[in-house]
């Protein structure tokens, strides 16, 4: 694009947002539907403290990861907006 250096680059921004979103949703899927449901029986042979790992992901672990995912997303989006000179 022939944009002046200070003007926002909207064309480059959106594909990067999509890539970030899909990556984070893959993790979201993995810790809940993956570890907590589909892989539970396999993971239950390992333990975190006194709890079987798959069971723990289903009742506690996935929630911690959800929180971390959203805050990571906020930080990554702020970085992207700076990079593409988009003002929030």
């Amino acid at each position, binding site marked *: 694009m022939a944009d002046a250096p200070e003007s926002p680059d909207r064309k480059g921004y959106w594909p990067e947002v999509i890539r970030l979103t899909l990556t984070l949703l893959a993790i979201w899927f993995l810790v809940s539907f993956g570890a907590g449901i589909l892989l539970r029986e396999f993971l239950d042979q390992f333990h975190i*403290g006194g709890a079987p790992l798959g069971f723990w992901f*289903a009742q*506690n672990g996935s929630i911690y990861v959800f929180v971390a995912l*959203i805050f990571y997303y*906020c930080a990554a989006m702020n970085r992207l907006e700076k990079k593409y000179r988009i003002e929030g």
Partner: protein
Amino acid sequence: MDWTLIWVLGTFGLYIGIALWARAGSTNDFYVAGHGVHPVVNGMATAADWMSAASFLSMAGLIAGMGYGGSVYLMGWTGGYVLLALLLAPFLREFGKFTVPDFVGDRYYSNTARLVAVVCALFVSFTYIAGQMSGVGIAFSRFLGVDFNTGIFFGMAIVFVYAVLGGMKGVTYTQVAQYVVLIFAYTVPAIFISLMITDNPIPQLGFIGNIKGEDISMLQKLDETVKGLGFESYLASTKTSFDIFCITAALMFGTAGLPHVIIRFFTVPNAADARLSAGWALVFIAILYTVAPAVGAFARHNIIESVNETTYVPAADYAAGSQRVSEAGESPSPAWFANWESTGLVAFDDKNGDGQMQIRGPAAPDGLENEVTINNDIYVLANPEIAQLPEWVIGLVVAGGLAAALSTAAGLLMVISSAISHDLCRRTFFKNMSDKTELRVARVAAAGAVIAAGFMGIYSADLAFVAQVVAFAFGLAAASLFPVILLGIFWKRMNREGAIASMLTGLIPTFAYIWHFKLGAGKTATPDQWFLGVSPEGIGFVVMILSMAVGIAVSLATKPPPQDIQDLVEDIRIPGKRRSHGIADSGMAPVD
């Protein structure tokens, strides 16, 4: 004076005080709190808005009874916030209007689409609010000795004051206060019961720790105990993984599609604050949701240990009775059981006439019948007594349950009243209404909605009915609202025809399926009669996939949306000053 009464009156006074302070002066104040709420404050308000009487009172008991099977609620009711933060909230905030039907109607340049969205929003919100109001009625009738209908009347009066006067602004700040009350009431007893069972003050750590003074993990011991009594294993479930998958997904996508949750993100200043606010909301929700499975497990362990095989002592003259039993060398049933018997939440039926209380599962190895029934709510309500906390803590738990019910009810009322005053009156039928008239109509609509909700609460006093219809709210939100909002943001080609087809595909089969298997002829059906083995709670997810497919197919077969709409979609994807886009904004200018 009774501690419960002191807490309830004290907190109600606080809510009214906040309402008088946060009055709404314009429709912008009334619908979206002037777009000026700090993201952390909004996060806290969202947490209270989201966590209902069921989350507060019933969820721990539900999980205690279901063990691993209860995980669907934990993952389902938290995972939706990831979807909200990444896929919906910041873009809907950037869109810059007041309601969910605003988005659907303007993005799909169609008042038909707007009306279908209004129907979905009203249906979801009314099913949900009935449960909150009857929760209030029950709290009053059981703990303050007033009758059920009077209790609902008190609840209505209090919500009336802050929702009608303050609109979203009043609701926001009372929800913050309600969050503080409910989280304090939930975690204090949880810390003490965790100390009692595992010697660890942090419930989440006690959950994965050992039983106090023993070399066996709490969960392991609980699992062995329940299996020994003939219950299903605590750490596994007899449901198929596929069904658990569908229920979890329906609850997650449903959470993300619930209008009363979505509109909370319209109250913050901009898109960046909307995503940050979703993160804070989940932090505040996670505090309760990670403690709940611990409370459930501790309480189930404790209830079995302290009640099973004890000698029943009736509540009348408990002190003398228990002393007599102890002198005879037997262990008496605990005092809390006697205290809660009068509420009907716990009951003992001595089927084999031996005077001992037997707790047994359906497959008990000794063939004895279960004699003790324990309501789900008791796990939270009786916690302070079981952990031998002072009496004022018990009153606090009742105030916490009321805070949870009232805060959710208020959020739902905002959806119902704005659907009428804004979506129907201002945007569809009387397009030239002034802001001042609309504000007046909004207050009248809120007042009407409070009264309607109260009657629904009285009508649905039968709580089993309420529990059944909650499946509707999530299923319908997931199948009818989530797909059109998601595609409206991420797929420019989605058009009016596709949106209407998609919403109807979501609405009708979901409604029919849940009605048939929950309330209609299929009530007694066994899982193998369900479509693909999916329970009514999980069908919303299956229909959601179908509704997206129909929306995409119909859009591709019809004309692309006008250029104005495509420009609008481009614009809301990118934070920053939102411009006006012809037909998309001709009915109502976006607010910055």
